[in-house]
């Protein structure tokens, strides 16, 4: 039998041929199919997806009803601008903390992006990754459109975002029928609130719940107590470094929280529960109140067929200002947006009365645009919107504070609620203060 001898030249030639073929087969089908597609679509004169201008839109509305709301808004935009197609991408809000900072610094960032937390927005602006839209604000009169909520778009004297829906913690949610049955009235002062807490406790019902497994819920109670015992000045001071976590007003807020915890007013083991774990206990009257909670408490009560209402978090004494925690889920344009003009159109539409009306009608979530008609909304939602648009407000815990403070404060507060003693208060307030000071030193 004759053995076939493969020469070196033949081997190399064959290898080159095979390698080249592989490379070509990887490229050609895409080109051929694209050409074929173009030829195919060109035979149809109607506007095709390929001929439309694109605008990419990354947001955090992954869950119902928000996802339905945003889909309807996108449809309305595409109807208003038939030449533009929106490529939407929803990212779960916890994942967005990782995904959005990475995607915005690529060479092809999303045109419109929802930089949810203020700290991320600030850093992205400082890094030159967000478009300055101050001129849009002036040209379109956005200040009138959003009122005081337009201030949430400020950083270093310029405007960077438009507010959309409100992420609001108006106060404490309760069931009207339960309050009527127990002869209770919504409180206005902390002393009155304590009477209600004690009344629930007396009836062997956990008075109030916080689900702090994910670490963000209990900080809102701390924030409200600081606002009530130290005032807005103290809270804003904590945000800019002019006040200290070891100040007596702040320590007093922790002590008040500790007092309520030690008296057993809260549903126990709050660090073991996510908020969604505790709705069934609340809606089945094993817990009296949810607080401080956002409009999601109303949504879930409604799903359970209950009639919930809220009262603003009580003040220390009559006459004190009722300051709420309100922040907006804002949208920005990437500085390197591939389609900046289309992005501006989409951003303008997202801030419009039309878009925000569509979103609210589907979700019952309060919106930032002052002209949105709320007359068809349930009474508590109307009340929330009125409060958000008229009462003084501050941003939330992880929106207002420097990132060094809240990332240390979240586990520290978790530690505090598990062991609400004076020693723990001293430890956690010092820890948070030290982290802020270190952050300030680093500039």
């Amino acid at each position: 039998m004759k053995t076939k001898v493969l020469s070196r030249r033949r081997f190399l030639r064959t290898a080159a041929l095979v390698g080249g073929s592989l490379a070509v087969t990887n490229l050609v089908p895409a080109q051929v199919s694209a050409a074929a597609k173009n030829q195919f679509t060109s035979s149809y004169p109607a506007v095709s997806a390929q001929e439309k201008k694109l605008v990419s839109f990354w947001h955090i509305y992954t869950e119902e009803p928000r996802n339905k709301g945003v889909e309807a808004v996108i449809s309305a935009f595409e109807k208003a601008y038939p030449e533009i197609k929106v490529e939407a991408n929803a990212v779960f809000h916890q994942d967005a903390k990782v995904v959005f900072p990475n995607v915005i610094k690529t060479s092809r960032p999303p045109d419109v992006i929802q930089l949810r937390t203020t700290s991320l927005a600030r850093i992205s602006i400082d890094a030159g990754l967000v478009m300055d839209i101050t001129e849009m604000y002036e040209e379109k009169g956005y200040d009138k459109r959003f009122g005081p909520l337009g201030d949430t778009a400020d950083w270093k004297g310029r405007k960077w975002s438009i507010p959309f829906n409100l992420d609001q913690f108006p106060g404490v949610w309760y069931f009207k029928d339960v309050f009527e049955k127990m002869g209770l009235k919504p409180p206005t002062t902390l002393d009155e609130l304590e009477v209600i807490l004690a009344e629930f406790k007396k009836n062997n019902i956990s008075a109030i719940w916080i689900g702090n497994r994910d670490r963000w819920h209990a900080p809102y109670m701390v924030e409200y107590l600081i606002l009530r015992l130290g005032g807005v000045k103290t809270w804003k001071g904590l945000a800019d470094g002019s006040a200290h976590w070891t100040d007596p007003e702040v320590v007093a807020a922790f002590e008040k929280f500790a007092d309520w915890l030690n008296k057993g007013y809260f549903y126990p083991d709050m660090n073991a529960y996510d908020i969604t774990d505790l709705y069934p206990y609340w809606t089945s009257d094993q817990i009296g109140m949810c607080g401080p909670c956002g409009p999601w408490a109303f949504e879930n009560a409604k799903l359970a067929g209950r009639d919930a209402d809220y009262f603003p978090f009580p003040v220390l004494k009559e006459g004190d200002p009722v300051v709420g925690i309100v922040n907006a889920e804002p949208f920005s344009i990437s500085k390197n947006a591939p389609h900046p003009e289309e992005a501006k159109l989409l951003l303008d539409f997202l801030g419009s009365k039309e878009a925000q009306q569509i979103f609210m009608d589907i979700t019952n979530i309060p919106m930032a645009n002052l002209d949105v008609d709320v007359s068809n909304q349930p009474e508590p939602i109307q009340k929330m919107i009125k409060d958000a648009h008229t009462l003084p407000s501050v941003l939330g815990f992880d929106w207002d504070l420097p990132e060094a403070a809240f990332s240390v404060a979240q586990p520290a507060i978790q530690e505090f609620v598990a062991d609400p003693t004076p020693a723990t208060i001293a430890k956690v307030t010092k820890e948070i203060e030290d982290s802020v000071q270190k952050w300030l030193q680093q500039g």
Partner: protein
Amino acid sequence: MEKKGYFQAMQDWHTVLHSAVCRIKRDTYIWHLSSSTSILVGYLLMLPTVALVALFWWYPLLEVLYASFFNWDGLSPLQHFVGLANYRTLLFEDPYFWNAVKNTLIWSAMYVTIPVVIGLVAALMLNARIGGENIFKGILYLPSAISFAVVAFIWGWMYHPAGGLINQMLRALNLGVLAQPWLASNTFVLPAINIASSWVHVGFALVVFLAGLRSIPDELIEAATIDGASQWQTIRHILIPLLRPAFTVVLGWTLMLSVNVFDQINILTKGGPGRASEVLSIYLYVKTFLEHQAGMASAVGIIMFLLAAAGGILYVRQMISQEVTA
């Protein structure tokens, strides 16, 4: 046509592969390649793998090393060179870093021990050739195929303080006093998540140990029995020493996985309560994406790499020394 069994089919494949390899060896000779060309061909064949490893492993590693010398927020261009300041801060000023190191070491010790102990006991029992061996192996190995995220959710429900299976069972057995908020307890949280995470490797450990046990000649066991060794003495002085290669594989594998754990802890507690379950990977995530201190996080990553590399080197050295001994 005669229906072939699985092992027969495998044997046939082995024969085919063996003859193919021999043929390639022979053909290589026929190609009349010089030794230098042969070496060149060898390098060329290695090139794709080396390129991929360099691109997706060494390059990012060097980038992370470079970033660890900067004060960087993760978004701006790298500008503020700080030298070794990030390492100094971590090693000498940051108590949370050392807390994470301590938790990582505890975590790794438990993560390695649980599959090794349970896997070994199960392998010893199955080695007695009891009935239904394949069913047991299947049951114990199946969890390895489940994603860590799913496992975390399942155990999250089981650990639920009010309606969770574990506390419900304890209450049903009149042991309600032992019921705990497992994931909210500083004492129990790390063991609780560890059990939830490491049990999936029991099947892997079982299969490796069982293969090791089956490779031990029966004569050795018989000789020990004749010499009057008890069952425990046989296990202690014959089986376990001869299982050293299997131990190395299981320990090395679980150790590497333990250092890189993230999903389960992030889903179940995010490192809480407080910082009770914060391991290095969670700490790295917090530094990068919550505090936006990517330079510092890069330094954490490099330290994690050095820890894992130290473990890996010990593991490889152990493997090599065993091969030499064998």
